[in-house]
């Protein structure tokens, strides 16, 4: 416990790095997953290939992706960009199916009414379908955000400073304190992300709070 108190500023620095490395890909991944999910839902025959195809990306082990990323991106090997791109790929892998299913959960009657009112497909997507899909998407995004916080720690194995560095430091010194500190910080960080997403989802769906059902 003393060790943790003595090293609070180190822990705080690493937490900020970790937050950045997990949050940016989560947002980017969501933005990329929206068009992909929409395409998968709009054209029935594309659902399986798009969803399964992106889902496949999640099976690539994180360590391999971090190391091989510079070869694809032309970045330098220690750039944090490698981690951000890799994590974005994982987020897209998780969220494409969620977005597709979320858009699919919008009742046909609602989309039909929107079309009847003269909404074009894009306007319908942004003002009707996406807002109604928010509960499903938010649920999936919570899982993705938490998963990202966990995977980013693996980047410690290639020397990117974040909370995972506490794990490797503790391991090579046979010292549990940094590892425990890292575990607690990761869980707290994931909790914060979770709460933010829940909050944003509630802000976006005032009709649910009003108690009316569609």
């Amino acid at each position: 416990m003393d060790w943790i108190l003595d090293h609070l500023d180190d822990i705080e620095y690493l937490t900020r790095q970790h937050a950045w490395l997990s949050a940016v890909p989560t947002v980017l991944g969501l933005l990329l997953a929206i068009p992909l999910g929409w395409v998968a839902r709009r054209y029935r025959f594309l659902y399986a290939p798009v969803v399964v195809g992106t889902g496949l990306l999640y099976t690539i082990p994180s360590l391999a992706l971090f190391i091989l990323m510079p070869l694809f991106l032309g970045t330098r090997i220690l750039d944090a960009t490698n981690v951000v791109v890799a994590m974005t790929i994982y987020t897209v892998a998780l969220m494409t199916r969620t977005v597709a299913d979320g858009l699919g959960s919008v009742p046909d009657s609602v989309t039909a009414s929107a079309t009847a009112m003269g909404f074009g497909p894009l306007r319908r997507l942004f003002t009707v379908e996406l807002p109604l899909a928010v509960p499903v998407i938010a649920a999936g995004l919570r899982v993705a955000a938490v998963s990202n916080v966990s995977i980013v720690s693996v980047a410690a194995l290639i020397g990117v400073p974040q909370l995972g560095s506490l794990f490797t430091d503790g391991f090579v010194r046979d010292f549990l304190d940094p590892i425990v500190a890292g575990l607690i910080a990761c869980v707290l960080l994931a909790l914060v992300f979770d709460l933010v997403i829940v909050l944003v989802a509630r802000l976006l769906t005032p009709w649910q709070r009003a108690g009316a059902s569609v």
Partner: protein
Amino acid sequence: MKRTPLLASLAVVAVMALAGCGGGDEALDTDNDSDSGSGDSQEIVVGSANFPENILLGEIYTGALDGAGLEATHRANIGSREAYLPGMLDGSLQVFPEYTGVLRDYFALESGDKMTASDSEGVYAELQEQLPPELEVLPFSEAEDKDAVVVTSETAEEYDLQSIGDLAPVAGDLTLGGPPEWKERQTGLPGLEDVYGVVFGKYVVKDAGGPLTLDALLNDEIQAGNLFSTNPSIAAEDLVVLDDPDSLFAAQNVVPLVAADSMSPELEDALNGVSEALNTDNLSDMVTRVVIDKEDPEDVAEDFLTENNLN
């Protein structure tokens, strides 16, 4: 009316992203700064590998460079040579604490040249030949951290082991543990057979002198293991380092690896000062403080620098 919540939440996300910017910029900062690290600015990034001794050396180098008026930062804990050597070549890192023997062998693997020396001077000379033009090494330090084959004191007593060669008659019944590289490298299984006629019954891949090999040795999953000579657990756990009279393991002196276009008289003086003040004994003591006593590398490094007037 429908847009307000959407805008509000976008604003929240944007604020969070900007708040995280404080941390993110730093993550990307080191990379940007290193772009101009090639002699234009004074900013030097010192890297280190993911074992305590190297992190300690990284701290010491960083402190010494700071003391010489160069702005040095320490990028610690980089997992493998495959990650940090490219980092030295692409400008992300300018200084790295290295070891003459392994570094020489790393480059010799690419060039295919045969290395013959095993003494400190000879190895250093061969290293200088093998280095690519972008990298240079400063004079090596007396401090050395060598590969070693280590057994428990029980095993040493049971089979009457003092040097590696003593393993030859019994190795067939024993298991050796070490890094993945040892399967192929001359300083590994092939070399043990060539030089000492030692062939182990089984080889288990653990890590390069790290906690996995140590634990496996202590719980008898392996009877002999590859540890590094300054590992404080050797003394703490009553382990025996087998002698290497035929020099299977070449010299491994601590040496500063520097990117050629970051060289400057101040840098050379600072790092040479460190190399002169370091020796195997004080290095071992410092590693013991970090690993066994759980002290911070920064603190131990500062003590060393202060004692030797290097900061």
